[in-house]
């Protein structure tokens, strides 16, 4: 039972992170090159998802949006949507920052070789931005992984929800929640370690390494 809950948590986390990355790149590019109107819309989007608690976002997509659009959404779908959109709002910030830090000089240099703007973004700006971004990405992973726990309020059976059920059934609150906490901790720590290793591997070499 705990395993299924854990898998649900893992699923939500990784789906949110990866969709968030794709959306985040689009948002960052839109914000940087899209002109005033697009960048204002993006600003509102980001402020909504970063400024309000994840619980409200879950409620809105579980209760409000279906009524407004006259559709039905299951709790798992809502989870995927909310965590992807929420993570995109955060990741956009990291990506934009990273892109800005490599943007100007490198772009000019790329253009001087005859690369088009799109090519310059693809081959020069983004590859560097992604490398710079990994530490930010680690932060986003751990905060997203943790916030998936909130999904129990719309009835999804994730790790925390299952833990709560077990706790109420056995009345061993202390042990059960400690155990659940430990699972989260191990999961998040392992992935962070892996990201760390990747970062060290693909980090752009500097003098220290060659010396």
């Amino acid at each position, binding site marked *: 039972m705990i395993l299924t809950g854990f898998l649900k948590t893992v699923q939500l986390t990784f789906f949110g992170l990866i969709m968030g990355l794709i959306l985040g790149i689009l948002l960052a590019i839109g914000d940087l090159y899209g002109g005033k109107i697009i960048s204002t819309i993006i600003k509102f989007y980001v402020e909504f998802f970063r400024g309000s608690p994840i619980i409200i976002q879950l409620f809105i997509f579980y209760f409000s949006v279906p009524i407004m659009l006259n559709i039905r959404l299951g709790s798992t779908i809502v989870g995927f949507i909310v965590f992807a959109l929420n993570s995109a709002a955060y990741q956009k910030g990291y990506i934009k920052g990273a892109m800005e830090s*490599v943007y100007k000089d490198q772009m*000019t240099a790329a253009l*001087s*070789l*005859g*690369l088009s703007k799109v090519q310059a973004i693809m081959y020069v700006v983004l590859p560097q931005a992604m490398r710079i971004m990994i530490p930010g990405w680690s932060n986003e992973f751990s905060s997203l992984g943790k916030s998936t726990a909130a999904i129990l309020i719309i009835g999804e059976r994730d790790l925390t929800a299952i833990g709560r059920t077990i706790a109420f059934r056995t009345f061993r609150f202390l042990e059960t929640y400690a155990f659940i906490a430990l699972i989260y901790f191990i999961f998040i720590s392992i992935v962070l370690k892996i990201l760390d290793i990747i970062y060290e591997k693909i980090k752009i*070499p*500097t*003098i220290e390494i060659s010396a």
Partner: protein
Amino acid sequence: MGEQKKEAVGTPGGRRIADIILECRNLWKIYGKIVAVKDVSLEVKEGDIKLIFGPSGSGKSTLARCLAMLTTPTKGDVFLMGECLTKPGVDLNKARAKIGFVFQHIWLFHHLSALGNIELGLRRVLKLPKNEAREQAIQALKEVKMEEWANHFPAQLSGGQQQRVGIARALAMSPEIIILDEPTSALDPELTGEVIDTLRDLAKKGTTMLVISHEMPFAREVADEMIFLDEGMIVERGQPELFFTKPSSERARRFMARLIKLTRRE
């Protein structure tokens, strides 16, 4: 490399008017209220080495960037091999590929090795296959005597080495002309020598160049014409000897005197 280039220039299309490679006519660049380039006209013929110099803030860099169409001029026209680059609808990427540019602050791509920096343009712009791009990139590195450092990343190289890679990056595209925007001024004095040597080699091979520089001994040795720019305008132009012996304008005379004094002190 020099011979290779001559061939490239002599491709179909027949004789061009006096083989002018790059030309600008009545070029202006205005930023808000600041006039950076004021009505400049000049032309670079095949095999020419033009040297632009002048006090800081005189619009040299802006002029260079306008010529490479990295900045759009406010007024006036730029021609590459007789083709106007300032009218709408021109494929600027294609034009920029034919104009090599070396930056003052080098601007190698941090995430690519020396070789990778050079391969990028060859593969993505000239669309060469992988092994051919590699071959040409190595060739370009040899030209600047950096082949041993091919797999080093920019941050692992000294400033002078980085700039030589920067030159190789521009050179590898077999451009019609190379524009060098103060290639040595961001380097420590002891590192400028190697870069100047590289430029001297290029000059010997007949590479068409437009150099912004204050390296006066180098200028005297290789430049066909020197152009003194001040406040965005061409104040005086002529053969190097003119500037070193009797510049006719007061401004050029004073600036030369200061430069020569500085060089001596070093």
